[in-house]
């Protein structure tokens, strides 16, 4: 049984089909890259998977259980954790408290949450900012923080929406290392990114979407040299 099964999911906004019978599966332990030109439906898909949007048609199963109609907080408790393209945090709470929220909400005891938060802060090089309000962090530090919040309790599947966009190379390296180590430990990911070198480096398998449909789904090198994929990108560039 796959960890995540996406079966003919469709979603329209007004007359525009954002997702058009999108289907694929992700097995436990996989690190899957999700690419596609702007407007190809990547974020819409992430929003449906994490419960922020309801699909018009189709089904999504997590470990064989249908997740349609569940709220974001319920899905989070079931192990679907995500980051946002435009980073979201709790600006008037300390960096530490930002992590403790996630830990407590997912059932960790106060001590367990604190221990875990300290590990993550160490890992993400945020320890000395622990008591600073998140509102005072830089854009890159906020990305790291959001990232950490995702892994307070290791999720069944982590949906990362453009974690590398507009991030300083040093922080990008911290994040990439973080993802690599967790993938090696068996963590399942979907990684949305425009950053092809990172996708090539991290993801064994890549899915390319265009106009709401999956147009390629194999190992990363093959996808990136697929003429259909190249045309989808160049077509956008030409337009």
């Amino acid at each position, binding site marked *: 049984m796959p960890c995540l099964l996406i079966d003919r999911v469709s979603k329209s906004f007004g007359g525009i089909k954002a997702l058009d019978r999108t289907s694929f599966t992700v097995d436990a332990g996989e690190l899957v890259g999700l690419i596609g030109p702007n407007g190809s439906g990547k974020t819409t898909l992430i929003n449906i998977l994490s419960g*922020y949007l309801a699909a018009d048609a189709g089904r999504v199963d997590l470990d064989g259980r249908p997740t349609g109609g569940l709220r974001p907080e319920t899905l989070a408790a079931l192990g679907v954790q995500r980051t946002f393209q435009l980073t979201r945090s709790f*600006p*008037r709470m300390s960096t530490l408290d930002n992590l403790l929220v996630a830990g407590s909400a997912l059932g960790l005891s106060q001590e367990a949450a604190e221990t875990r938060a300290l590990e993550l802060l160490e890992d993400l090089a945020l320890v000395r900012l622990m008591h600073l309000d998140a*509102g005072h962090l830089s854009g890159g530090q906020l990305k790291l923080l959001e990232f950490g919040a995702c892994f307070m309790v290791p999720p069944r599947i982590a949906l990362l929406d453009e974690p590398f966009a507009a991030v300083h190379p040093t922080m990008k390296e911290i994040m990439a290392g973080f993802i690599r180590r967790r993938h090696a430990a068996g963590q399942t990911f979907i990684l949305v990114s425009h950053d092809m070198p990172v996708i090539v480096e991290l993801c064994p398998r890549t899915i390319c979407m265009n106009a709401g449909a999956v147009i390629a789904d194999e190992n990363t090198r093959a996808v990136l040299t697929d003429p259909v994929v190249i045309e989808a990108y160049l077509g956008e560039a030409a337009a």
Partner: protein
Amino acid sequence: MLTLDLAINGLIIGVFYALMAIGLSLIFGILKVVNFAHGEFYMLGAYAYTLAGLLLGISPWISLPFAFLVGMIVGLIVERLLMRPLYSGYTSWAVMRDEYAVIVTFGLSLLLINLVDKIVGPYAYKGPALVDVTRIALGPVLISGHRLIAALAGIGVIIATGLIVRYSYWGRQIQAVAQNRLGASLAGIDTAKASAIVFALAGGLAAVSGALLANIFNPTPDVGVFPAIKSYVIVVLGGMGSVPGSIVASLILGVLESFGGVYISYQYRDTFGLVILILVLMFRPQGLFGERARDV
């Protein structure tokens, strides 16, 4: 002819409601906040109109634009001193803007009411009538001359405002900022100026509404509280940010209250609108026309 009588009176009240609500709706459109001090612009207009007549002895037809001017000036000052942080440069304010907007306009309302109470006193003044004719026959319906003339003047102001917002240079810039502040600023529109114009216009319109009604509801420091609540109901019913929606909703509320006061309950006529507001926000948050109240 009770039905016709109620309908006409309802429509007339609706005109005054619309004068209030258009400004509130424009402010919401451009800043995405509700001005909880909107009723106090109405109150200031009512006093400006009444006291100009009483103290200076000038014609009500001059007091009327004077009230508009007072509303505009206060609107400009408020925008400059209190609304700027909502959109200029204070990025860390983004999360707190709703909190700030509610509290600061609520505080402003409290300030203006009590300031006027101290300066002018709590007693009601009677605003002068625009015309001396006590009764005009409108078909089979008798209407006080002032009420009719005031309503016609109000309709004139509403039409003028509609034309300005829709077709004038600045009106189109306001529309652009309301649709997309960032996009408008990238296109070279001075968004701060657009906000200032909207506040001035909204203040002026509410003040004119207060002035036109000063003969019927005599100004006291808290005279603006109820018209403000009506205009909240109207902008929610008509859709936040939609001017045509506000006008239609104003007329609907005026007529509804007029009939409801007779056929449902006179005591509870002021609660109809409030119940409508809650129901609309619960079940149709985008109102009849405008943008959605819920956002994810």
